C-alpha cells in the first residue's frame, strides 16, 4: 500500500462540498448545465490517491448520492463504481495528460456516468425518456474541470493529503 494516511478529512470535506453543489437549487434554464461535481471530485481523488480512494469509496459515495437525491438506491453507486474502475485503470496516463486532454476524458467519463444513470432511471420508470439535453452536464463538467483540478491540487498539496 501507499504512504501513511494523512489529511483524509480533506477528501471527505471536498466530497461534502460537491454534494452541496450538486443539490443547490438552480433556475430551470440552468438545470441542464449543472456539472457533475461529485463524480469529478471522485475522479480527481482516485487519480491522485489511487491507493486510498477506489471502487469501494466511489460506491459508497454513490450510495449517499442516491439517498440525497431520493433516487433508486444503488443507481449512482453502480455508475460511480464503474467510472472509478475506468479512472483507476487509466490513472497513470491521466496524470500525464494536458489540461485539454484531461477535460476530454472528463467529458467521456461524466457523459458515461450521466448516460448510465439515465438508462437505469428510464428502465425502472423513475423518469421520462426525453430530450438528450441532460448530456450538457458532461460538457459543463469538462469546462470547469481545469479549475477544479487546480483547486483540488492546491488543497492536496496544502494539507499534504496522502
Amino acid at each position: 500500500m501507499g504512504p501513511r494516511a494523512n489529511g483524509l478529512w480533506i477528501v471527505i470535506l471536498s466530497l461534502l462540498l460537491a454534494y452541496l453543489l450538486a443539490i443547490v437549487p438552480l433556475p430551470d434554464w440552468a438545470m441542464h448545465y449543472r456539472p457533475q461535481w461529485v463524480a469529478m471530485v471522485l475522479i480527481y481523488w482516485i487519480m491522485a490517491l489511487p491507493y486510498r480512494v477506489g471502487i469501494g469509496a466511489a460506491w459508497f459515495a454513490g450510495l449517499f448520492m442516491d439517498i440525497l437525491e431520493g433516487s433508486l438506491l444503488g443507481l449512482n453507486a453502480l455508475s460511480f463504481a464503474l467510472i472509478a474502475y475506468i479512472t483507476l485503470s487509466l490513472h497513470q496516463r491521466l496524470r500525464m495528460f494536458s489540461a485539454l486532454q484531461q477535460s476530454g476524458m472528463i467529458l467521456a467519463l461524466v457523459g458515461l456516468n450521466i448516460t448510465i444513470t439515465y438508462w437505469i432511471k428510464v428502465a425502472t420508470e423513475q423518469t421520462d425518456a426525453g430530450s438528450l439535453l441532460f448530456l450538457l452536464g458532461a460538457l459543463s463538467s469538462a469546462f470547469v474541470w481545469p479549475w477544479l483540478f487546480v483547486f483540488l491540487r492546491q488543497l492536496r498539496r496544502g494539507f499534504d493529503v496522502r
Partner: protein
Amino acid sequence: MSLEYRLLAFLALALGIMFADSRFDYLDRARFGVAYLSTPVYWVADIPARASSWIDDAFVSQRDLIEENAQLRQQLLFAQRELQLLAGLASENSRLRELQEASQAVQGRVITAEIINVSNDLGSRRVLINRGAHNGVFEGQAILDAHGLMGQAVEVLPFTSWVLLITDSRHGIPVQVNRNGERAIARGSRGDVPGLVLEYVPDTADIVVGDLLVSSGLGQRYPKDYPVAQVTSVYHDPGQPFALIRARPLAQMDRTRHVMLVVPDDDVIGGGSIGVIQDFPAPAPVSNPEASAIEAVAPESDVTQSNDDDSQAGVQGDL
C-alpha cells in the same frame, strides 16, 4: 486481476440493492436512517435561499410595507366576505348531507411547510419539504399551496420529505369538473412545460376551456373539493377515441416556497363504517410512488355510475 473482481462485486452489490429497493420496502428503514446524515447537507444548501428571503425582509422600505399592508388588508376583506358566504353554504351543505344521511364532510387541519429543494432530475417533478416523520408527515399525505393541490408525500425522511408533484408524468389525480361534476383523471404531462392532461375523456364529455377541476376524493388519497387545475385547451381529434384536454395546475409549483400539509381528522381514520366513501382512510404503506398513484386512481371504477365512466375505468385498469 483483483481490480476487476472488486468492480464486479460492487456492481453486483449495486444491482442487488437496486432490485431490493424497487421490489421490497425493507431498505426504506436504512434510507430513513442515513437520511439523518443527508438532512444537514440540505439544510446548508438551503442557506442562500433563506438568507435572500431574510435580506428581502430586512431591507424593505417603510413605504413598501405600508403599501403591502393596505393591499393585504383589502385581500383580507375580500376573503372575509367570501368566508361569510361560505359559512352559509357550509350549513346548507351539512343540512343537505343530513337529509341524505351521508358522512360528514371533512375539513382537514393543515400544517405549514417550506420547499427547501427541487429534484435535479429533469424527467421527474419532485420537491423536498422541510417536514418529515418527526413532524407527523406520512406517505401519501396531500400537499397544497394557497391556490390549489400540489402533490403528495412519497418518501418520508426524518426531518424532510420528497413530494411528488401532480405535474409529474407518473402521477394521476382523480378530478371532477366543478361546474357539472364530470369525472376524469388528470395525469402530469410529459415534456418541458409542467401541465396536466385529462386521460380517457370521451369526445362527448362536457368539458370546456376555463373549467375548474377540483379533486374528487375518489382515489381516497387526496381530500375532496380542493381546486387542482383549470382547463386550458380542449381538442377533439376525429381520428382519436378520446378528447385531448390540457389543464394548467392552479398551485404555483415553481414560484411558491410555502406549502401546507393536510392533516386528516383522527376520527375519520379510526371509525370507518362500511359503504361510506371516506375522504381520508388510513394510508396503506406503499413503497412505489407510481403504484400508489395508480392505486389511488383505481377505486373509481367501484363508484362510477354513468356509462361514460365505464369505458374510462376499463382503460384505466390497463395502465
